[in-house]
C-alpha cells in the first residue's frame, strides 16, 4: 500500500541524490567536484544558497579534505554527507578507513566511474570495488528511484550501525539518465530519520574525549575485531531499516538481494546496479522463447550477503555472474570471486562463469544481455567453459 504523499518527478540520479540530501537536511556537507558526481554538490550548493536547507556546505580543496572535514564534523556529532567518484574516491582512500575505524556514520553518494590510467570519465565499478575492504557499508542501486530512497535509508542505517555508508550508482547511466522518481514528503523524511544521537561528541567540552589515539599491539586487534562485529550486526540493521521503510511507505526495495523470475528458473544470472535492468528485459524476451532464466541482483555488497546468496543459489546447476570491474586477480571480477567463496560449503556447487563487461562505460546492450544468457545456458547444458570471459570487448 502506498502512502498518499508520493510525488512523481523526472530526475537524473544526481538530481535524485541531491533532492534526497535536501530532504535529509544534513548538518554538514563537504565536497569537491568530480565527474560524474559533480552535479550532486552543484545542485546542493544552490539549495544552500537559496536557504532551502540548514546545512553548512564546505567547498573543500580536495576529496581528501572532503572526507577529513566529514570526519571532524561527524566526530563533533553532526549528520554529515558527501558525494564523489573515481579518482576522488581513490584520493580519499586513506580517510575511508579512518571514517570507518572511528565508527563515524558518514553517508557518501558515489557516481561509479572508471579509474585512470587511461583516464576515462564513464561508468564502471573499479572505484568502489577498490574500497570494498575499507569498512564502509556499500549499496549498489539499479536506477535513480532506488538512489533516492537508498540515500535516505542509508542515513538511518549508518547512524544505527555506527558505520559509514556508500550509495553507489553507475556513472552517466544513472547519474545522468532521467527517470521517474517517486519522492516522499519532507515531513515523511524528517520523521523517518529523526535526529542523530551520537554517543560522544567533540563539542561536549564538559566531557572531553580523545578521538583517534595511537593504538598499538595492545588493543588495535580488539578494535578491529569490534569493527568487524559492527559490520556483522549491520546486517540486522539493514534488514530492519529497509523493512520499516517498505512498511511505512508501501515500497518494495530489497535489503540485500533482489530476485527476478527465479522461482521456476533453470539457471541464474547474478548482477549489480544498472545492468540488472537490461538483464531483466532480456529475461522477459528470452522467457517468451521458453528459456527459463532468472536474476539475482546484489544490492548490498558490504556487508556481503553470503548466507542469502548461498541459500538462493543452492540447487541451481549453473550461474552467470556479471562484474563491471577487473580485479586483475586473473580469476575474474570481485563479485564472482566472493560469490564463489560463498558457495564453497555447499556439497553440490553450480557451474559458474564470470562475465566482465562495461569497463570505462562500454555500453551493455540488450544483445550483450542475450549473449550472457545464452552462454550461461550452455553452461547449464553441461558445456565446458572458461571461468571468466569478457562481454562487449572488441576482438572477442
Amino acid at each position, binding site marked *: 500500500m502506498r502512502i498518499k504523499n508520493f510525488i512523481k518527478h523526472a530526475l537524473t540520479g544526481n538530481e535524485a541524490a541531491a533532492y534526497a540530501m535536501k530532504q535529509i537536511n544534513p*548538518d*554538514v556537507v*563537504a565536497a569537491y567536484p568530480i565527474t560524474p558526481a559533480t552535479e550532486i554538490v552543484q545542485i546542493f550548493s544552490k539549495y544552500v544558497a537559496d536557504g532551502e536547507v*540548514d*546545512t*553548512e556546505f*564546505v*567547498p*573543500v*580543496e*580536495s576529496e*581528501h*579534505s572532503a572526507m*577529513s*572535514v*566529514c*570526519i*571532524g*564534523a*561527524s*566526530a*563533533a*556529532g*553532526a549528520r*554529515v554527507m558527501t558525494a564523489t567518484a573515481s579518482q576522488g574516491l581513490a584520493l580519499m582512500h*586513506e*580517510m575511508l578507513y*579512518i571514517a570507518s575505524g*572511528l565508527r563515524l556514520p558518514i553517508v557518501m553518494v558515489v557516481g561509479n566511474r572508471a579509474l585512470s590510467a587511461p583516464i576515462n570519465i564513464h561508468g564502471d565499478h573499479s572505484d568502489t570495488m577498490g574500497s570494498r575492504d575499507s569498512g564502509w557499508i556499500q549499496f549498489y542501486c539499479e536506477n535513480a528511484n532506488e538512489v533516492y530512497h537508498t540515500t535516505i535509508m542509508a542515513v538511518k542505517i549508518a547512524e544505527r550501525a555506527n558505520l559509514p555508508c556508500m550509495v553507489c550508482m553507475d556513472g552517466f547511466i544513472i547519474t545522468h539518465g532521467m527517470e521517474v522518481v517517486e519522492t516522499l514528503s519532507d515531513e515523511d523524511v524528517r520523521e523517518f530519520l529523526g535526529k542523530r544521537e551520537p554517543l560522544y561528541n*567533540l*563539542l*561536549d*567540552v564538559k566531557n*572531553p*574525549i*580523545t*578521538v*583517534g*589515539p*595511537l*593504538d*598499538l599491539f*595492545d*588493543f588495535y586487534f580488539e578494535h578491529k575485531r569490534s569493527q568487524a562485529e559492527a559490520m556483522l550486526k549491520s546486517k540486522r540493521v539493514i534488514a530492519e531499516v529497509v523493512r520499516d521503510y517498505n512498511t511505512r511507505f508501501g515500497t518494495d526495495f530489497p535489503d540485500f538481494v533482489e530476485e527476478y523470475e527465479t522461482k521456476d528458473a533453470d539457471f541464474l544470472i547474478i548482477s549489480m546496479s544498472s545492468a540488472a535492468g537490461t538483464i531483466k528485459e532480456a529475461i522477459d524476451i528470452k522467457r517468451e522463447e521458453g528459456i527459463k532464466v532468472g536474476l539475482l541482483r546484489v544490492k548490498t555488497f558490504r556487508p556481503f550477503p553470503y548466507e542469502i546468496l548461498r541459500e538462493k543459489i543452492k540447487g541451481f546447476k549453473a550461474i552467470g555472474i556479471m562484474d563491471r570491474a577487473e580485479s586483475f586477480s586473473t580469476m575474474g571480477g570481485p563479485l564472482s570471486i566472493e560469490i564463489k567463496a560463498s558457495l564453497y560449503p555447499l556439497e553440490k556447487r553450480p557451474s559458474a562463469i564470470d562475465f566482465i563487461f562495461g569497463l570505462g562505460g562500454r555500453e551493455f546492450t540488450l544483445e550483450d544481455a542475450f549473449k550472457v544468457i545464452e552462454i550461461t545456458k550452455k553452461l547449464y547444458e553441461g558445456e565446458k567453459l572458461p571461468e571468466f570471459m569478457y562481454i562487449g570487448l572488441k576482438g572477442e
Partner: protein
Amino acid sequence: MKKILSLKELSERNLGLAGGHRACAGCPFPSIVKMVLSSSDYPVVVANATGCMEVTTTIFPYTAWPVPWIHSAFENVAATIAGVETVYKSLKKRGLIKEKINFVAFAGDGGTYDIGLQALSGAIERGHNFLYVLYDNQAYMNTGIQRSSGTPFGAHTTTSPAGKVIPGKMQERKDITEIIAAHEIPYVAQASPSHFGDLIRKVRRAFEIEGPKFIAVISPCVPGWGYPENKSIEMAKLAVETCFWPLYEIEYGVYKINYKPKEKLPVKVFLERQERFKHLIQREDLINEIQKKVDEKWERLLSLDGKKIR
C-alpha cells in the same frame, strides 16, 4: 581581556595537557601546548596531525588530553578542525550551542610545510575560525629525523646526511610564515617558547580575532638537533637572539617585529651548539652563506616593520 597572563596565573588554569605523556626528556612541545591552551579564556577543542605530539600523548588506553581532542591523519589537521568548527558554527547559528569555544590545530613542520600544506591552505582560504599552531622542530622527528622542507640549509638529517661529498641539506627551508601571510588571513606570527610572554600574548591576541590564525613556534628537538636535554629553551633563545628565528607578527597585513636583539649574535653560536650542524664548523664558506641569508631576511623584516603590506 588581560593581554598577558603570568606563568603563575596560567598554571592555575586547565593546562590542556596532563603529565605522564611520553614525549622525550627535554622536549619543549608539552610546554608550548600548555602555554597555548591555558591562554584560552574559553574551552578549547584540539585537532592534532600525526606526529611526535599525537604519538607520545595518546597511546590507547591512555590520553594526556583533558580537553576534547581529535587526530585523524597526517596531512589533514586543518581540514579535520575545519569539520569540527563547521559543526560549531552551524549549532551557533541555530542557537543550539551558547558557549564560546576556541578551536586549535597542532602540527609539526612535516604536517605543515610539506604533506599538510594543501589542506592548511584550503582551510584558511575558506576562513574557518581556528588557530593553527605549528611546532617547528625542522625535520620529520617522529620517523627518525628525515629532512622536510622546513629543514634549514646545511642541516644533517637521516635523508640529508652530511657525507663525504654533500654537507647536509643543500636547499633553503621554505618560509612558511610568509607563505601563510600571503593568504592574507587576519593574524600570522612567529614565536618561541623561550620568550613565553610574547608567545602567550600572541596566542591570546589570536583567540580574540575571528577567522583563521597561524602561529609558527620554534620547537628545538633534543635527538634531532643534538644538544643536551636541559638546553631546549636555551636553543630556542639562541635562535631568536641570532635572528635565525625572528619574533614578529602580521596583524591584518601590518608587520611588527616583537623583539629586536640588543646585540644580534652571529648565527654560528646557534649552529655550533648542535650536532646537526657540526660538520659545518670547518666550512666557513657555508656558515657565511647561512649568516648572509639570516642577515638578508632580518634586513627585509626591519624594512617591513610597522608597514602595512597587504
